[in-house]
């Protein structure tokens, strides 16, 4: 996972995952795996840079909390701006996917 497109995708997935509620790093990773039906397994090396970047951009906030088995962990949640960003990116993604689908069909038609 390194290109801009994939980075943007990861950001979107993280935002979506957190839309369902606050979570710590490992949990976000598992949730992403769930909501993509196992297509994306995000490792720590990609996840945490993305999380910190999103937090510095102001779309996430974080705080210390306790996990299920009473471990101390850093929890992330969507900020208001983050919610707005999620909506915007979702719309953008739909637009792009429709356009690409159309383009692909056009090629096949010939």
């Amino acid at each position: 996972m390194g290109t801009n497109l994939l980075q943007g995708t990861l950001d979107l997935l993280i935002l979506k995952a957190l839309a369902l509620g606050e979570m710590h790093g490992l949990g976000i990773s598992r949730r992403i795996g769930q909501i993509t039906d196992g297509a994306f397994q995000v490792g720590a090396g990609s996840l945490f840079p993305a999380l910190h970047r999103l937090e510095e951009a102001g779309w996430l906030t974080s705080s210390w909390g306790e996990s299920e088995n009473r471990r101390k962990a850093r929890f992330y949640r969507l900020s208001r701006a983050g919610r707005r960003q999620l909506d915007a990116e979702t719309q953008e993604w739909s637009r792009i996917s429709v356009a690409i689908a159309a383009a692909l069909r056009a090629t096949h038609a010939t």
Partner: protein
Amino acid sequence: MKMWTRLASAWRNLFRSTTVERDLDREMNGYLDLLTDEKIARGDSPASARRAALLEMGGVEPVKERVRDVRAGQLVETALRDLRYGARMLARTPGFSLAAILALTLGIGATTVIFSLVYGVLFRPLPYPDDDRLAMVAMHFTPQNAERGPMSIADYLDWRAANRSFEDAVVYQFDRFPLIAGDEPAEITGATVSAGFFSALGVPPLAGRVFGAHEHEPSSDALIVIGEDLWRRRFGGRADAIGQVVSIGSTPHTIVGVMPASFHFPQRDSEMWANMRPRPPSRRGPFFLAGVGRLKPGVTLAQAQAETNTIGRAIEQANPRNYTNLTMPVVPMRDVLIDNAGLVLFVISAAVGSVLLIALANVANLLLARAATRRREIALRLSLGASRARIIRQLLTESVLLSGIGGLAGIALAHGGLVLLKASDATPFHRINEVVIDGRILAFTCVISILSGVLFGLAPAWQSAQETPNVALKDGARGQTSGRTRRGHAVLIVAEIALALILLVGAGLLLRSFVLLQRANTGVRAPVQDVVTLGLTPPARKFRNAQTNELDRPRVTAYYTELVDRLKRMPRVQAVSVSDTLPPNLMSWADSFALEGQTFEQAQANPTVPLPIVLGDYFRTLGIPVIKGRAFTERDFHADAPSVVLLSASLARLCFPGRDPIGQRFKVSGWSPNNDDYSEVVGIAADVPYDGLQNSANAQAYYLPLQPANVMGTRMAVIVRGDDARTFTEAVRRELRAFDPEMVVSQPQSLDQLLSASVSGQRFRTVLLTLFAGVAILLAAIGIYGVIAYAVAQRTHEMGLRLALGAARHDVFRLVMGDAAKLTAVGVVIGLAVAFVLTRWLSTLLFGIGARDPLTFAGVSLTLMAVALMAAFVPASRAMRIDPMTALRQD
């Protein structure tokens, strides 16, 4: 909004870095724990779960690193971290760091101070507005024979009448004013100036006013303008000083204005200016005025020169008896104040440039060597995942840090050095007071600093980062330095040695020249500590004839005769004399002469020589042998005594070759149609220079007794010889005060003070250049030591092998020394060749030896070789003591 948050994050990352780091650490470990728990829940053992978790995660540190990489403010944070790391690395090897910083400090500091000096003295505009419009005007004619000689009042008036090129034709005369304000009379240096002086220079007064155009008539009042320092010192900076009347040599003068402290024309210590009130002259001479003027707008120097030459021709036509081939050279003022200083500063700058190059070469060598020893560390970091760019950046930061510290220290040294130079009196340069470390030179220094850091940091950084970590880790320190690096070292060392040699040759030549100069024949045989001189300025009104207002010559003779008699009677005083000229370079008058039977044209060709006018036992007081004939006796000083003269030996040889000069006839001051004003030569004295020690080889002069006919002025020096001058100097001063309390007496100076003062300029540059040469040789020695030591360290394994295979220890020693000797020899040969070409430019500064003096060249080469071999000795002997077993086992 987004940027704001990013900025806030950047702030936090930079300034709360510990907190941020701690949080990151906890978060990562927390993640690891959770992941481990997951695996345990699935049935793994705690140990294998943790291992699997670490593997899946990819390690805690790499993840942290990747998080750090995306952090805001990352660039600055990384830079800071690099700096801290760099500082730690430098501190780890204090020897290397100190050596490199020292080299840079010396190089950059010396460069800055000298360039500031060069700039301040040579290139910066003079403190007068539009100073390129200012020029000096002089006279050049036979028989005066001075390149840019003084003019007379008659010349001034003629020039002023015909002048169209300058705003004003201005002249001035150096003067010393005996100021009687308060208890102790003091002698103030300054000038008497004609109309238009201050407006030509264009500096407005600080307080009061300057002289008006109408205040230079013979009937005008006596006025003075004083300098700011004098105003504050003697008059408390009070406004009521303006208009105050003070006694200058018992003539009342009114102070009309104050000039700012930055104004000191014509000399560094000029503090008083009097208004010249010239009377219509009765004859052409004497010549004692310097001309200056500001060109009118639109007039070029060439046009002004053409005009003055026309004026010169007109003067010559009107006065053929007095002038032949008269020109009036017009010289831009800046060029007048420089003369030899330009060459000297150029030489010194070249010297300093060389030192800087040597210093930088040393640093390069050090950095190259160090980079090689860090191969392993760098290889390790590469294998741990650091990017090449990061490593290059880090090494670069280290080098920049090094040169930054060196640069800052150099700047500090420069400021301190300049303060020292200004305080010491060894700098004869005209505008030394105004020299500051200016911003441009500072910037230049910083650029050199950073550039050198980048340059030297780049090569080793690049080289280190290029190779694969594998190679470096396997080989370890045993890795051979590439041939290219070794050649690089060799080239640098050879260059260092060549430069050091050139510097040493220059310094050696100057040093020998200086020693020869000091030992130059001063002609004076009296023990220097037994002779003391004092300058005497009696009030002029004492010698003013009340009716005619002319100088009463017999009174001058009588005055000084009485003074000499009084001093002669003092205990411990062996001989006393009064003279207007002192060796080796304090001459007052110079004049020409004519010999019996010479035509006017022939007499024109006679040289102009110093002409001391003396009273008392002049020759005995100074210990000047009278080779033939006699010295002046009491009779010679009487008004009606026949005119006599003493010649110096070389003058006698010139005038009367092969004949006995005693009894010959000698016309003082030049040709005359009358035969009756010839003097008789009564004695020949040994040569004594009065025009500077560098002219001691051909010290022509003639002496006149101070009889009324020969009196020219009232200021004289008294010379007293006795047993250890220190014991009777104070008594002499008291006696002088008792003789005439109104006479201004200058500080006493012993003969060796006079001698040493006359060569202070040469001393300064010799000392300076020797200092630089010393630094250069030190740096070169350190460089050689470093390179050889490093080479030995690198080749320890090889040497151990040789020893194990049966080589004798002194073979190894010879091997190392041989390497050093080869490098040095090449450097010396190159240096000699270049020096041979370059020293030609030094010849004007040398005395007594040629610019290719073989003794100096040979001596310097041998010294440098000896130093280089000594520097190589320690590492060579260390090589000799290598234990083959340890060396072979060494990694």
